[in-house]
């Protein structure tokens, strides 16, 4: 490699954009060539200097609040709006609410067996998957295509019943990671609504179907044969219950 060839590659090296072979050939040249080594050191110095100060312009808090109010339904951080005496009053109110929530949620926590975190994870995943390209890894309305697709990807075989007769149309399946382990997501459609059925191994006794509601979405959860099942959708709750019963019955 000569210096002319090395020139632009010094930047790619600096930016970690070269593969191992590319990096190695540049490093060889730098070991040999003083001029390029000096240039590289200068670039490294510049890079470090730029990185050492925060150069990003941040939007003002008022502007950010205005955007949140316009584009998101709930402001990101209502706490920021409290000032002066309000703070004391609000803190007291918050403390009271805290106590009430604690009392109310205690029994729920006990029966809910620590599934709140995973419920949130599942709802977030469901919402991400609503983007068209993210919906399925294996698009198929044929249960005999979807079910075998999971072989070798998961240690279990998820149920993929054909529910066309009940008006739940199979769209396909995708692989997810929930609670740090592979999970199967089977995707159905009911009219315009997408239903995600998440299945993941989870040792425990069979349970009856529990309902959670979050931001207009229903999550039905149950345990069956040491597997944890979650059905998530914004479809009518009656429809989702019918769906869960069909899955449980199969």
């Amino acid at each position, binding site marked *: 490699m000569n210096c002319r060839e090395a*020139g*632009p590659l*010094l*930047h*790619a090296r600096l*930016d970690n*954009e070269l593969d191992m072979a590319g990096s190695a050939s540049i490093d060889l040249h730098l070991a040999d060539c003083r001029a390029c080594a000096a240039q590289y050191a*200068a*670039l490294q*110095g*510049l*890079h470090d*200097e*730029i*990185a*050492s*100060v*925060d*150069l*990003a*312009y*941040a*939007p*003002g808090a008022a*502007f*950010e609040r205005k*955007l949140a109010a*316009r*584009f*998101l*339904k*709930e402001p990101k951080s209502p706490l920021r709006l409290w000032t002066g005496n309000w703070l004391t009053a609000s803190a007291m109110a918050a403390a009271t609410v805290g106590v009430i929530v604690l009392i109310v949620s205690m029994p729920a926590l006990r029966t809910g067996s620590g599934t709140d975190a995973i419920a949130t994870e599942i709802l*977030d995943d469901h*919402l*991400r998957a*609503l*983007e*068209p*390209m993210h919906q399925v890894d294996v698009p198929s309305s044929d249960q005999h295509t979807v079910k075998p697709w999971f072989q070798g990807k998961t240690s279990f075989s998820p149920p993929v019943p054909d529910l066309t007769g009940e008006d739940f149309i199979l769209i396909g399946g995708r692989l997810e990671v929930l609670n740090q382990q592979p999970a199967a997501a089977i995707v159905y459609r009911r009219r315009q609504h997408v239903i995600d059925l998440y299945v993941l191994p989870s040792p425990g006794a069979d349970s009856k179907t529990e309902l959670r509601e979050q*931001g*207009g979405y229903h999550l039905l959860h149950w345990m069956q044969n040491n597997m944890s099942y979650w059905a998530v959708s*914004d479809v009518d709750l009656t429809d989702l219950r019918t769906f869960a019963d069909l899955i449980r019955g199969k």
Partner: protein
Amino acid sequence: MDTRVRTFELTVWPHMRAAYNLARWLVRNNQDAEDIVQESLLKAYKAQESFRGNEPKTWMLSIVRNTALDFLRRGKSSAEVVLEKPGFEPRDHSPDPERALLEQSRRQRVRRAIAQLAPEFREAIVLREIEGLSYKEIASVLGIPMGTVMSRLSRARNLLLVELGGAKEVSA
């Protein structure tokens, strides 16, 4: 909450600050940057159903860039280069005021050098050095091949070395 708002919150909203930063560097004043971010978010909100890519960040930033370029082309800029306003600096809570002052002057010096670059070099440097995008992501935001990204960064950095190089020895 309806699905569109939730989708927007999960895909586009996380890049709002990056959007503002890029807009601010391109149009060089706060008011215009705010207008551009607002317009870009609205475009992204309306277009999110037709978005098919995997990278909402580069998608969002390319919307911001196009909006900013349109804006500059129409010559609507409400003010030319505005000097650094202390009020908009990130708050520094370090207990050492002397160090904070030094940091502030270094920030201004580097910012001024980057601000002086021609737009095509400036945007490449901002996306790479401040937003930390890969060449591939930069290529996608700017709509140019990766080789061009590399040569623009190369030109930009050599210009910055000239601009910043001399003074560095004095302050070091």
